[in-house]
């Protein structure tokens, strides 16, 4: 099975799973969520399933029943989490093939630190790093840093002019942060380190570049501290539900995670993503020479919350049992079904134009184990999923080229 034919399957790791009652399941390990062993076991299971990549959720605020809301005072659900990037760094030497894609916010972090940290994750994992770019709109998260005041966003006010303006600013800042990161990743040419005894030079300084980015929220001079990562650029991913984030994905990302709820939804969301790509001139040679957009089309993965069991009835019964404890609400479609039925649906939606899926296991480790032990073999039987890892880098797995370095000119390579 070649790279281009295989369905792409990612897994989204979060706490004890995406269902708020997941932590109470028999197999759950709620007291170990902050330990290395828990994450190492999840990563090993995902890698055993030959999955493309794993993502790790994060945020500067505590989990809440609504991700836009301030933290609540509940004691009956999982609260508290680790820095996702460092969890990914821990997993780098413990895994060998799976992509490692932590969530890192752009709203409160230093783009310079973020770029060096992701480059280092790529070095430590030998070319398997990615970045799920996230913005933070929550007022409580802004107060944690104390550097700026954000009014927050209420779900019922998403379309007010104030909210629209705020969201546009935060997403523009995210695009700037990715732009800075990509420039910093290019700020060392691949062969900048020369160790030339004859001239007593460790680097060729003509192959190190200032990035000189100036934007409304930050300016960064560069070059990076960390040499260019193995992939050139780690894989950049964005979760998007609406036009503004589609636009961020089109401007800045390699992969977009979307949330259609049926096959028609798949077709319409793909249309919106492609429209956003056209609107920002992605892939357009004139636009590229003018600066931002990337050449290759976005790889589109649909998010699905999955709860798998041997029969559909058993799966739905389990979901009902969990929902009775705490109802699951999700931006993504929720599927409580069998691995075989899920395989049917994945292939049907793939036919509608998707490159793959990011599965959010309702319960960890249970539903991840079922993905690896039942869903993947089912897809393999149908010739729809790889039977071994082939490409060694994460970009390569998605058929993405290693980006050319924007600072390399014909003259400097000669």
């Amino acid at each position, binding site marked *: 099975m070649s790279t281009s034919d295989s369905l792409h399957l990612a897994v989204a790791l979060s706490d004890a799973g995406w269902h708020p009652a997941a932590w109470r399941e028999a197999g759950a390990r709620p007291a170990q969520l902050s330990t*290395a062993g828990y994450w190492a076991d999840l990563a090993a299971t995902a890698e055993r399933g030959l999955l493309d990549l794993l993502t790790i959720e994060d945020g500067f605020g505590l989990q809440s029943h609504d991700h836009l809301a301030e933290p609540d005072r509940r004691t009956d659900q999982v609260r508290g989490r680790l820095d996702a990037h460092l969890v990914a760094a821990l997993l780098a030497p413990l895994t060998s093939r799976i992509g490692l894609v932590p969530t890192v916010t752009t709203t*409160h972090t230093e783009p310079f630190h973020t770029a060096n940290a992701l480059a280092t994750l790529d070095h430590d994992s030998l070319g398997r790093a990615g970045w799920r770019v996230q913005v933070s709109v929550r007022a409580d998260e802004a107060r944690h840093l104390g550097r700026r005041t954000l009014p927050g966003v209420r779900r019922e006010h998403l379309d007010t002019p104030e909210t629209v303006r705020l969201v546009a600013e935060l997403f523009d800042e995210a695009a700037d942060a990715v732009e800075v990161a990509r420039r910093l990743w290019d700020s060392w040419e691949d062969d900048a380190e020369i160790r030339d005894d004859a001239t007593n030079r460790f680097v060729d300084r003509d192959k190190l570049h200032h990035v000189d980015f100036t934007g409304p929220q930050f300016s960064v001079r560069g070059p990076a501290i960390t040499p260019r990562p193995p992939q050139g650029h780690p894989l950049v991913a964005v979760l998007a539900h609406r036009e503004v984030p589609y636009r961020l994905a089109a401007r800045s990302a390699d992969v977009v995670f979307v949330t259609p709820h049926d096959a028609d939804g798949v077709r319409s969301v793909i249309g919106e993503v492609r429209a956003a790509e056209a609107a920002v001139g992605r892939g357009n040679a004139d636009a590229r020479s003018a600066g931002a957009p990337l050449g290759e089309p976005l790889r589109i993965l649909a998010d699905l919350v999955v709860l798998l069991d041997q029969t559909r009835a058993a799966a739905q019964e389990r979901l009902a049992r969990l929902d009775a404890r705490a109802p699951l609400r999700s931006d993504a479609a929720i599927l409580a079904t069998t691995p075989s039925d899920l395989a049917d649906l994945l292939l049907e939606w793939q036919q509608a134009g998707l490159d793959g899926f990011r599965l959010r296991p309702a319960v960890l480790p249970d539903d991840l184990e079922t993905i690896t032990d039942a869903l993947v073999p089912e897809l393999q039987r149908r010739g729809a999923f790889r039977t071994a890892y082939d490409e060694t880098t994460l970009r390569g797995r998605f058929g993405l080229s290693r980006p050319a370095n924007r600072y390399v000119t014909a003259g400097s390579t000669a």
Partner: protein
Amino acid sequence: MTRKQIILGAYFPGVNHDTVWSDPASGSHIDFASFAHWARTAERGKLDLLFLAEGLRLRDRGGEIFDQDVVGRPDTFTVLASLAAVTSHIGLAGTINSTYNEPYELARKFATLDLLSGGRAAWNVVTSSDADTGENFRRGGFLGHHQRYSRAGETLEVVRRLWDSWGSDAIVADKESAQFLRDGDVGEFAFSGEQFDVSGRFTTPRSPQGHPVILQAGESPAGRDFAAAHSDAIFSRYQRFDEAKTFYDDVKARVAKAGRNPDEVKILPSAAVVLGDTLAEARERHAEIHHRQVDPWTAIVLAEMVWNRDLSHLDPDGPVPDLDPTPDAPKWIRGRAPLTQDAHATAAAWRELGREQNLSLREVVKHVFDRAVFVGTPETVADEIDRYVRDGATDGFIVGSHVSPSGLDEFVDEVVPRLVDRGVFRSEYTGATLRDNLGLAPPSRFGERRPIDSSVAS
């Protein structure tokens, strides 16, 4: 009677002239395999901790990127978290700036590192001394000396409150009774001071050490007081026995004055080690290494660090120049910690040294920058390390060499066993955490929630 136990750390060969990249044994300074080799070697020797330095911008000279020494390094937090996966007992110490990082992020990252490593995280708190570092950060600019320590102090205060905002028993995780948290307000914090006005709820549960170990490297009187009041260990550059002992006595007195037990703060100078089968061989090897470390051009550049002006027209084999330093001119070399607080006095001292001993500029620089304190056979080096600790000049050392990643191998294989034989160094790890291994008490209020206080604390 049990002998006082020596503390030993290992530094990764640095981004400076001490690291001889042209040595045939010199490997990558970026690849994780280099860090893993170094870490596994140190852990094989049962050393206490690994130590990574910091760089927030590439160094430049006269506006051009400085290309002669090792350039570039990976991100410290990322490397330490990856090292947590390939080691099991050794401490993981990172030098992280308090000027260009926010307390909330620092607290999260160090708590995460401590959780993932099972209680092995340490933070060497530094402030930025280089105005131009701001070019890479939101804050821009830089802070004056007083403000830097004010910010560092408040940073530590906020970070410790955040670490204390989760009790060690905060997570119940009782599936039957559906109680995950003991209290619904876990993580609550507030702080208002000169530098920070922050509040909310911290995300990361209490880590095994409660508070990761705090290291500092204060040199000025204010810096020493700060370190004495706030740190668990102090990294120093005072290596010769007399200056090390003077520093040790001075800082321990400051610790006592700050109302703490002097044993609560460990003093750990850095020390490069050069070994040989005989004393003569070790000295010859050291002379060779040092000759390469301070080559003619490096001698000029290090002099420029003091003079703060272009000295490229000078002959390194000629005398120390009579030119005046220009410390107030725009910085000629950027991205390096200053070598001196008083350029005129340092220049005068160099001139005097040159005259008295009839040394060239390069020879003076070699003399001043001779960082290898321990040159000898494994036996004599073990003797010396033992003597420094026994005679109260230090609590231990952070050791390293001129070459990555194999530079630590000989020390671990040859010197460490001799320290173990003398009964002054462990043969197995005994503690569960870095704090345990260093003989540091758990942080005060360990496992208890501190009362929330929104007024200025310090």
